């Protein structure tokens, strides 16, 4: 009995270790037919509220299909799919990351743009630094926080700076809009450059200021089915919902623009 | 100028007063837990009593009485502690250890090393001055510790069983060394060994349960012990009771006849002690009669070798012992648990007031 228990413990440990390699994130990709099983959607973090609403409508129309989400940075999601994470649908916050998935030959269908997003200025409630326009962001002494050029929101900010010829000097270049918003909400920063939809999501905690120069860098959101999905029909149906009239309405309500 | 200390520690039921004359060495002895180390700790400034005071050469070391509250830290007392273990600073060489006190007193490094070298020479450790404590034997390390303590030129040297941790060969060597360096130096030495008291101290103080129970010149205390502990040190039988016309009556009713050492007539009924050596005690199977003898029944508790004799220890409150020859032991067939009679001549029993 005792040696057996010892052996079992060792085997369990080894199994747990080696199992990590093959089981991936542990989301079962079980469903075989289009009207049953699980549909796993990997989506950019900024799509959280809209996609959850879309999923409710989708499940109402397709009873038996259970939609599951993984929301994260687009770049992270591409890396996870490349490493074998079981995704059926991927929705990115910019075309560049989707291109990375295409280059890896991991898309089942051609990506379709379903929404756009533009930058806006987020300021703490009351706007203590009295920011009114894009040019105000270049004011000396103003603590501006933006995204780093390596991530989509930073790339957009950089594009606007180039087009307007007005270079900005942020005190911090963050990895994500969440980090930018965090610094604006806590009052550490006087202003932050984030997406219009992020300001909508943040609610009362920040104030948003639109600026016309943002038209120079419109971010396009593409969606595609992932190569090898066992739920091709369900995946296509979900993409159709997101790109259709219903999807546009939900997205527009959240502040997204038309593609 | 004398040194004096009085201190009370309520938690430990400690209440001691002690004075040490210049150049005097006092041995402090007593059972474990009697408060010997507490006494040194209080003097050195490592243990704060509830009340009391201490003065050294007219300087107040501490005064803790109601209103006044003075407490000099250890480094301003001029009392150096030498412990059972050498406690040499392991990262410093023997020379640097010996130079520690002068350096701490602000003596320039070169001068401090010179002083340290002289003290190392005085303890015959000059050859090993460059060694680290880890490279010294226990006896060598303790000698360096002595040099380090003396280099501080203390007003009062406190020695806490300095020989207890040494092996049988290095202890006599260090004892001789201590005798040399303690001569004419004021010191208090805590020890378990009567030999230390005899060789090193002018006076012995017996501490028991936080009180001084006996004090006096070493020879006197050992010769006429008034406490069971002191009697144990000199290896004599010791009975306390009340004085009678011819001896001492123990609380259990037994009367020990003896002779009064002191000519001064003492009132009967006062507290007294009867003292006699185990060698004066004979063992019989029957009560012995005839004058003037003491004969009392005892139960043999155990037998142990004692020199070329066998020491017979009796059970019971008086903790009496008798020394008999191995031959007599065999003839009497002595074994633990046996009922026998201890017999001692009155002339061998010293009786004096407690």
């Amino acid at each position: 009995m005792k040696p057996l228990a010892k052996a079992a413990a060792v085997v369990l440990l080894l199994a747990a270790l080696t199992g990590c390699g093959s089981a991936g994130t542990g989301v079962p990709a079980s469903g075989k037919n289009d009207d049953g099983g699980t549909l796993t959607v990997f989506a950019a973090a900024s799509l959280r509220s809209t996609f959850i609403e879309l999923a409710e409508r989708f499940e109402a129309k397709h009873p038996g299909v259970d939609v599951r989400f993984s929301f994260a940075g687009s770049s992270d999601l591409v890396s996870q799919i490349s490493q074998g994470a079981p995704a059926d649908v991927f929705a990115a916050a910019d075309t560049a990351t989707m291109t990375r998935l295409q280059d890896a030959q991991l898309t089942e269908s051609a990506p379709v743009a379903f929404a756009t997003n533009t930058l806006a200025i987020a300021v703490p409630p009351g706007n203590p630094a009295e920011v009114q326009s894009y040019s105000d962001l270049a004011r000396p002494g103003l603590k501006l926080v933006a995204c780093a050029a390596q991530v989509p929101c930073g790339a957009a900010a950089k594009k606007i700076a180039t087009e307007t010829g007005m270079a900005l000097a942020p005190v911090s270049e963050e990895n994500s809009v969440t980090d930018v918003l965090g610094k604006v909400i806590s009052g550490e920063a006087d202003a932050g450059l984030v997406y219009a939809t992020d300001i909508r999501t943040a609610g009362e905690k920040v104030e948003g200021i639109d600026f016309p120069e943002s038209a120079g860098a419109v971010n396009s959101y593409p969606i595609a089915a992932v190569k090898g999905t066992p739920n091709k029909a369900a995946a296509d149906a979900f993409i159709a919902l997101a790109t259709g009239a219903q999807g546009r309405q939900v997205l527009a309500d959240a502040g997204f623009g038309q593609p | 100028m004398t040194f004096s200390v009085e201190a009370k520690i309520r938690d430990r039921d400690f209440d001691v007063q002690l004075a040490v004359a210049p150049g005097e060495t006092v041995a402090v002895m007593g059972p474990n837990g009697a408060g010997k180390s507490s006494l040194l700790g209080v003097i050195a400034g490592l243990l704060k009593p509830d009340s009391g005071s201490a003065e050294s050469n007219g300087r107040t070391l501490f005064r803790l009485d109601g209103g006044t509250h003075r407490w000099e830290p250890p480094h301003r007392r001029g009392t150096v502690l030498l412990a059972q273990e050498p406690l040499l600073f392991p990262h410093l060489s023997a020379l640097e250890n010996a130079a520690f006190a002068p350096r701490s007193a602000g003596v320039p490094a070169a001068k401090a090393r010179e002083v340290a070298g002289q003290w190392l020479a005085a303890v015959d450790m000059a050859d090993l001055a460059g060694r680290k404590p880890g490279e010294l034997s226990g006896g060598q390390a303790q000698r360096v510790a002595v040099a380090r303590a003396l280099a501080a030129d203390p007003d009062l040297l406190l020695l806490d069983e300095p020989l207890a941790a040494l092996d049988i060969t290095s202890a006599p060597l260090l004892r001789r060394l201590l005798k040399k360096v303690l001569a004419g130096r004021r010191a208090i030495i805590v020890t378990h060994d009567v030999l230390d008291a005899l060789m090193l101290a002018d006076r012995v103080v017996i501490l028991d349960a936080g009180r001084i129970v006996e004090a006096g010149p070493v020879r006197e205390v050992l010769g006429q012990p008034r406490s069971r502990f002191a009697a144990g040190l000199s290896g004599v039988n010791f009975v306390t009771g009340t004085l009678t016309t011819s001896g001492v009556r123990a609380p259990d009713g037994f009367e020990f006849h003896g002779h009064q050492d002191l000519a001064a007539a003492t009132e009967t009924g006062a507290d007294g002690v009867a003292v006699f050596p185990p060698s004066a005690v004979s063992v019989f199977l029957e009560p012995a009669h005839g004058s003037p003898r003491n004969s009392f029944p005892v139960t043999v508790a155990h037998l142990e070798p004692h020199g070329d004799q066998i020491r017979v220890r009796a059970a019971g409150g008086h903790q009496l012992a008798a020394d008999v020859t191995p031959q007599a032991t065999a003839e009497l067939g002595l074994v633990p648990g046996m009922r026998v009679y201890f017999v001692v001549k009155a002339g061998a029993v010293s009786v004096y007031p407690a």
Partner: protein
Amino acid sequence: MSAIRAARNAGYTGIPRWVLAVAVVAAALIVLPLVAIIARVDWPRFLPLVTSPESLDALGLSLRTSTASTFLCLVLGVPLALVLARSQFRGQRLLRALVLLPLVLPPVVGGLALLYTFGRQGLLGSTLSVLGIQIAFSTAAVVIAQTFVALPFLVVSLEGALRTAGSRYEAVAATLGARPWTVLRRVTLPLVLPGLASGAVLSFARSLGEFGATLTFAGSLQGVTRTLPLEIYLQREADPDAAVALSLVLLLVAVTVVAIAYRSPQRGAA
């Protein structure tokens, strides 16, 4: 593998065989990911990637801030460890527990806590800004964040060393006439030097790896607040190869520091 051979050569080890097996699994759990990251390095591009201005700025900043925070840990941590190890006061146990908190606190929580302390609207921030000191988004913020997470390592290892050393040497030194400062300088600190050194090394290593609190509290700007871990995190978004290359650099720096410190811990008495 050599560990197994050494154990066999030594004859009897007293370790049940299954324990050995689990130990191998445990070691593999730590070693394998390191091997994996080395295997993923894009060697032809390695040198250009790690010598780019961004990478060099991040590495330089990491080394500077970690050195500064280790120094700060020593200056602040030694007195704290002494007080915890050598004195007795009410609330001491509570204080010790609180000091250890950054060890178990998620770094982001630490960053938020620092933000609400030193930030513009924080407890001390408004006072500091009156004095003209702005900490947020500065290199000083990085050093504070690193010190916050690294200080417990120094305090814990030093307090342990102090307790092991005991206070008997200090008592002897005091009776020999050494003032408290002399005792500390010439006896206490030399005695606990190995513990102090390993504590400092752990603090440096922890500072080098600090990420969450820095990101939350200090921000991320090249050459100012973007340390090596933040640079790796950022590069991962754009160029995973660069992130892998920089991870290896961070790994090498950490290994070097630890190796140097553990090789000669007894050296250099104060």
